[in-house]
């Protein structure tokens, strides 16, 4: 007799098929559509589309934005995790909730916030304009909006990891005469490196792919303030589907690389990441 804690063979196959079928329809089909549409007219139009000057400018802007945002948010993520995970102070839980806040704000609302700060009618807009500083509809606003939406990723990954690891190793290093920076460099960072890499990967993927927040603050100036996702939108709205899906396929390839790296990290360093709960 079959144990009542498992399903019958038929039921199991049915559930597996249903799950795989749903994933194929919801996830795999859109992913395949990106590459199929990009190469619909062959490799030459695809190559032509992604090497257009405007496309190259958007790739450059996306890389610049990520190159600024990822290290900055990485450093602040480590600082936040150190403060929260290695110390006890009043309001710690509140601080953790505040760090998570950008996750729950609509990207468009995030973009609007910076218009209210730096726009022509914003709090700092007139002063900035009088001093010849251009933030809105320029690269600085794109960087700031991207920094907002990717703010929590690194801290989010590091806090549970560092809490689980405790403070014993750091205390040992300090007792043996190491200073704070040495302890961070030789003890803490090696312990959290895989979790940190994980957070950096997620930050980078979101930074390169952010659309809503950046769309509000960028001004959509071709060749100047269009990141790759914005360039995809512009091309799509011009019915240049090979171009739009061509640039989109580069972003999709980035997403696949991110997922592969993530899977590799989880597989090779499962123990080091155990506290994160992935």
């Amino acid at each position, binding site marked *: 007799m079959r144990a009542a804690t498992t399903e019958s063979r038929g039921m199991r196959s049915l559930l597996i098929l249903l799950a795989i079928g749903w994933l194929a329809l919801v996830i795999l089909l859109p992913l395949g559509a990106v590459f199929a549409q990009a190469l619909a007219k062959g490799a030459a139009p695809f190559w032509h589309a992604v090497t257009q000057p405007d496309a190259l400018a958007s790739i450059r802007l996306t890389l610049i934005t990520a190159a600024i945002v990822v290290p900055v948010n990485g450093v602040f993520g480590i600082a936040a995790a150190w*403060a929260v995970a290695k110390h006890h102070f009043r309001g710690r839980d509140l601080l953790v909730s505040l760090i998570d*806040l950008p996750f729950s704000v609509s990207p468009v609302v995030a973009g609007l916030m910076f218009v209210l700060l730096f726009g022509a009618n914003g709090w700092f807009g007139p002063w900035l304009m009088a001093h010849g500083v251009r933030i809105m509809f320029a690269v600085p606003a794109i960087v700031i909006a991207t920094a907002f939406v990717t*703010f929590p990723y690194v801290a989010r990954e590091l806090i549970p990891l560092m809490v689980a690891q405790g403070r014993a190793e*750091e205390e040992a290093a300090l007792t043996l005469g190491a200073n704070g920076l040495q302890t961070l460099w030789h003890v803490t960072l090696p312990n959290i490196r895989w979790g940190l890499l994980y957070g950096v990967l997620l930050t980078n993927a979101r930074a390169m792919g952010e659309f809503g927040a950046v769309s509000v603050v960028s001004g959509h100036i071709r060749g100047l303030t269009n990141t790759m996702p914005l360039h995809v939108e512009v091309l799509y709205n011009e019915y240049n589907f090979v171009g739009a*899906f061509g640039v*989109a396929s580069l972003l999709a390839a980035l*997403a696949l690389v991110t*997922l592969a790296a993530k899977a590799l990290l989880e*597989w090779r360093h499962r123990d080091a990441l155990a506290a994160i709960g992935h």
Partner: protein
Amino acid sequence: MTPPALLAPVGASRRLKAFRRTAMPGLGLTLGMTMLWLGLLVLLPIAAVIVRSLGLGPAHFATVAFSARALAAYRLSFGAALVAAAVNGVFGLLIAWVLVRYDFPAKRLIGSLVDLPFALPTAVAGIALTAIYANTGLVGAPLAVLGIKIAYTPAGVVMALVFIGLPFVVRTVEPVLADLGKDIEEAAATLGANRLAVFRRVLLPEIAPALMTGFALAFARGVGEYGSVIFIAGNMPFHSEIAPLLIVTQLEQFDYEGATAIAAVMLALSFTMLVVINLIQARERRWRDNR
């Protein structure tokens, strides 16, 4: 230096505690950095929305925040996010169950595909979904023969939010399901419960908090979602225009008051969802600790 623990006389545990609290360096620096960055990048901008919308005055605020067009947009954003979160609740649970309980070929590869919506830029997802569900697309064409339209209707909005929300449910339910021992299931089965009864009476209550958290996370994300939706939605005012798009439209028409008021409503909803999610998780933790 002698570790203070060795010197500690009787009754010194409080002093020892004080030592432990101060021994770890860098609190001032790291907390200062965190507060500065958090304050400038997150809190100041949020304050700008709140102060600006308060500045409108209650009557004017209500007029622009709850205009007929805005109400229709909220209804679509909330309604589509609810439906999509419900669909994801069902299929997310199914996928989590299959990934945790069964073995099948390429399971790891299939499992990591679940995270694709987290990694794929929303605009890319948006144009891809539109290509599939337009009436010339792979799925849209056969459906069009049956007279069903998905792209450029509210159903398209739901499809986009189903894509975006799926990993939230799977990744919240999966660890809870994996931690669940088989002993209660066995006990229930021994006592004569059939498989369906075991699932409904034993398993479902155990995973309900995680399922609710996943549902709430998917819903919260769906309400504010923009990039994946605008390509497939059709964006007709009163019919297929989501609330974030209305903000963008009003900004483009230099209607900053209208945009700010709607943003304040969305922000209030975000905060409410954040509190709700925290409450569910706190209750779940308490419940687990008590067992």
